[in-house]
């Protein structure tokens, strides 16, 4: 059993619904965002390419964050989900640095401003403090909505098929760009997509073996103009975490940016 996600880049239209659903689902504090969208826009010889990469914790099989965590707060569950135990986290932020995908956020005091700085916390925020508490001084990230998965499995539901057991972002996506399921099951929708549509992971060179795959099969019967033919390394955003000019541009102001 290994939970995984396949994201169809041809379908994502940059609507940000997944980000909003995650914020609602986990009562995320004001300046915290678990999933993000990275805007990629370039002119090439083949033409213009506009692509949006929805990124979130990759729940890596070989997770650097687990290895560097000195307190045992970050651990890997048997189903592949990398989780953070907020009660054990000492806030050292080694994991934030170790994650080659920049998918972990440290909840510092200045990120917990309340939704409306200068005003009391809203009713929703107050409910969140009880129902899904966040701890200032710890590190957070996407956990594939493991609470939904666990509660769903306990009721005999199937994650990826039954809504109540499936991550909130997958459920809300109007483009149906995300598919969730068991990557160890060769017949699951995720396994079939990865195999049939040339699924690729980001930055395979790091040897992390992410559980989030991407496909780019094109829209309306047309081939994507940039889809990697036999390349499974995700060269589209090879620059993602190498701090060169291009990467700086991606995360810089003026782009559609998320959180921070």
């Amino acid at each position, binding site marked *: 059993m290994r939970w995984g996600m396949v994201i169809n880049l041809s379908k994502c*239209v940059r609507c940000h619904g997944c980000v909003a*659903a995650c914020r609602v689902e986990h009562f995320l504090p004001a300046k915290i965002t678990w999933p993000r969208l990275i805007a990629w826009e370039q002119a090439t010889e083949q*033409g*213009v390419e*506009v692509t949006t990469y929805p990124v979130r914790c990759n729940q890596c099989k070989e997770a650097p964050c687990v290895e560097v965590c000195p307190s045992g707060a970050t651990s890997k569950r048997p189903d592949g989900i990398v989780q953070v135990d907020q009660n054990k986290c000492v806030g050292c932020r080694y994991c934030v640095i170790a994650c080659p995908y920049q998918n972990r956020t440290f909840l510092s005091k200045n990120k917990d401003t309340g939704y409306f700085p200068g005003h009391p916390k809203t009713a*929703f925020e107050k409910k969140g403090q009880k129902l899904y508490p966040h701890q200032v001084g710890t590190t957070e990230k996407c956990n594939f909505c493991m609470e939904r998965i666990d509660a769903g499995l306990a009721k005999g539901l199937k994650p990826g098929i039954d809504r109540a057991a499936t991550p909130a972002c997958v459920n809300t996506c109007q483009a149906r760009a995300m598919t969730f399921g068991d990557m160890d099951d060769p017949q699951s929708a995720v396994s079939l997509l990865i195999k049939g549509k040339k699924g690729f992971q980001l930055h395979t060179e790091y040897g992390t073996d992410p559980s989030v795959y991407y496909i780019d099969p094109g829209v*309306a*019967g047309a081939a*994507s103009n940039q889809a990697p033919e036999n390349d499974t390394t995700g060269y589209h955003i090879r620059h993602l975490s190498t701090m060169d000019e291009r990467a700086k541009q991606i995360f810089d102001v003026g782009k*559609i940016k998320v959180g921070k």
Partner: protein
Amino acid sequence: MGERKVVLTTCKSCHGGCGVRVTVEDGVIINIEGNPDSLTKGTMCSKGLSSIQHVDNPYRLKYPLKRDGAKGEGKWKRISWDEALDTITSKMKEAIAESGPFSIAISQGTGRGYNRYTSRLARSIGTGNVISPGYVCHSPRLGLYGQVTGYGRLYCDYHGWGGEFPKTQIMWAKQLEISSADSEMAYWFMHSLDYAKNLIIIDPRASAYATRATLWLQPRPGSDSALAMGMANVIIQEGLWDKEFVDKWTYGFEELKERVKSFTPERVAEITWVPKEKIIQAARLFAVDTPGCIQIGSSIERQANCGYTLRAIICLMGLTGNIERPGSMISWVLPATGLIEDFYLQIPITDEMKKKIIGGDTFKLGAARTCNPDTMIKKIIAGEAPIKVWISVGGQQIVHMANTAEVVRAIKKVDFMVHCDLFMGPMAEAADIVLPVAHWLEMDDIYDMHPRFMIEAHNKAVEPPGEAKSDVWIFNEIGRRVAPKYWFDSVEDCLNDELKTGKISWQQFSKNLVSGCFGKDQVYYKYKTDYWRKGGGFPTPTGKFEFYSKALEALGYDPLPLYREPGESPLSTPELFKEYPLVLTSGYRQPFYFLSQYRNIPWLRSFAEYPIAQINPETAKQYGIQDGDWIWLESPRGRIRQKVRLFPGILKGVVMATANCFYPEEPAKGFHGLFISNPNVLTSNDHLDPMFGSPDLTCLLCKVSKCSKEDLTEEVFKTQEFGFVQTAGDEKAAVKSR
């Protein structure tokens, strides 16, 4: 754990329509998600999901307010609902007694559930002067579908209810995937793409779909009529038209053929900047790979040639037989509850009301049931003062209308203005009384979707803050006081009346959630049966689909499509083009904002803090502009600042500015930063579409330059009146624009 309940309702964060499931604990919303049992299958976008920060927003209006200072000064005093309603209704009665009911205007934002209340209130007091943004969004399409096919509402068949999905889809000046515009749901469109063979995007700007589509045409903004006529010419010259449909069911083919003959691919390529090969290929795909549909965007309706442009596009549908066929353009059959508009149509518009509609004598299609807002602005400025009382709900005319400086000048001259809203905003600041309105999560009402094959229930999930009330409550209360014959004892009575055709009570409908006509109940090929006309045919004067419209001819318009340049363009005003050498379009929308809304919702604002203008990197280089710079965009009317994004997906020489933006956090003075970034500071209201009166909002000329550091200092940026737009002062503006 507190007491929990689940409420099923309908989203109205855009035009609306997505099914919503809300979890409420002790009167507080703790979760919101899509309703999986609805037609949108449990999906929702960022706007609807972020409604939580709407409901919880500390800046919400909670009580009726009365102006307590000069207009636009931002000083307010809390008053009771009784005082508010008494003041409003006595002002209305005064105006009616002194100047007639026509001196009252009722205005609204885009059609999202209050159309029938604004129009009913207007008609019940005897005025046809409804101010609606319809003339720059959706109404021109409906009006011309009506002229050409006899039925005013054609929509793309994304549902496959007739056994077929569209094989070739054209998305013309629209991104339905991020907008769910006009209640055609993004989810339906994106789902239907799984069955499409060809996707053709016609857009000056690249989108994710554009760069992966079968074909992407990138026209110069404002040249769409030439493109459509060119495509029609290719279809005719190459003999690709649907011969059976054209022979049997259309009128005026020969005249159309003659009219489009000169629009050769070469000539059209020159006019539109689209390579001729692409024009030919688009025409061939749409004509050969049928069925197909064309999704038309309102950017076309924000052009002063929108009528004839739409005529040309609709002719493409007729030439290819893409009418009433499964997977093409359909006029949907109504649900058992009938036509929701009957709620106001049952009060007929009298000849006298029609006669007094402002702009009605000029814009015979656009100002037949609502007035022409731009003409009204001009008349007020000219001192004709046709409007004494202005009652406004939802919309920000002050933001979306052309030539902001003139609109502000005119609105300040209106004797008495009421605005209903959830927040203080530019329009509210111009009012004398502001009424607090409930959010869609806080009200019981009926959602009317534009395609009209269903209606849905808005069910109250939580109580509104303070004394905020639903739109229907407010309109019913005003109506009861000024025209009691037409209004109701309670909101529930009113809703029951709206549902009477379906013989269903509000209580029951609220539980059912929807009344619709879906699947096998829908009827295709209506023109082949007695549905519209005995023996078959369309409900038009000729009984046919009219390439050549005698009705338009009778109104004094050209009976055929016509190519005309925008009021200001490289071709129509070459002298002006020398000074303003870039084509500007204000068609840029972000998926997390809806028109002028949501910059005060932190979750949504986090996605793009400032309005963005996209420029081709090579054009930017010419002006020394870099990614992330603030730039001035300037036209003969004024100048604004937006943040630049270098974007290879836009043509050289074209600037795409974000539309409809103000800054809710900015002070009342200057109307919440209305003049800082709003492209309508730049647009002109001097060139209007002859049929609909629509101004050129998405095609004009501009020049750009980099902002200096001084232009962006805190004092200048935030506090200077009108956000540092020098041309916005009353007299100065008039001088400078000459």
